[in-house]
């Protein structure tokens, strides 16, 4: 088999960040991909943060209460909303990517996206209301 040359261009070297996140003039799929990647990275950071904070439990009741007081501050609740947005977008868009990637609904991927996003918006509103009233 003949060797396949790379698409590398010495004059315009590839910039991964631009390829992933420069969505000017691009379509729905690129926006979804960029946001999926961004939320995925943020959620990974959050996962480790979350696990680290749980070690406060080891300091007994006083350590945990300290954290609970912080967690109930308005700023923290606002961060919660951002977190829930990230989870909802990544999760719901992920359903689309997984299904379409397995060949399910490939033709309907745009409609699938918008249906999921409507569900996501509703869930975001409900959770926001819950977060601030519970």
């Amino acid at each position: 088999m003949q060797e396949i040359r790379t698409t590398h261009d010495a004059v315009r070297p590839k910039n991964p960040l631009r390829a992933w996140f420069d969505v000017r003039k691009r379509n729905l799929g690129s926006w979804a991909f960029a946001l999926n990647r961004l939320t995925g990275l943020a959620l990974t950071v959050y996962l480790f943060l979350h696990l680290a904070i749980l070690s406060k439990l080891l300091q007994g009741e006083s350590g945990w209460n300290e954290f609970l007081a912080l967690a109930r501050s308005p700023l923290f609740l606002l961060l919660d909303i951002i977190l829930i947005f990230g989870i909802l977008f990544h999760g719901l868009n992920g359903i689309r990517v997984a299904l379409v990637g397995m060949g399910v609904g490939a033709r309907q991927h745009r409609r699938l996206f918008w249906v999921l996003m409507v569900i996501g918006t509703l869930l975001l509103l409900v959770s926001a209301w819950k977060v601030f009233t519970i």
Partner: protein
Amino acid sequence: MQAGLSKQGTKQKSVQVGRAGAFWLIQAVSGLLLVLLLLLHMVAHHFVVEGGLRDFAEVLAYVSNPAIFTIEVVFLIVVISHAMLGLRAVIFDLGLNKRHARVVNWVLGVIGIVTLVYGVWLAVAIQQL
């Protein structure tokens, strides 16, 4: 001109089960599982509890329930696999040579296992308080 018709030497006898495909499938399936597990996790921790957060005693009682403990460990395994595979995809997109790719695989594998051990240890340790 019959280039396309020649078959000699072109068929691969033993086909490996592609790793790239396996990773993608694990990522997709773990993602779909996570949607369910995370829903469970969020509802159990924040939406059925007064004030949205458990106090110390409630956390202890919760984690000590063997069923909950099992679900949380399964959740941890799935979420770590998904996160590590996701990180792997991002890092691989930066364009790695074979040697660096192997290092990244190992490092992410180790981080994943260490995190899992830490998480399980934490869940066990707080029960002993």
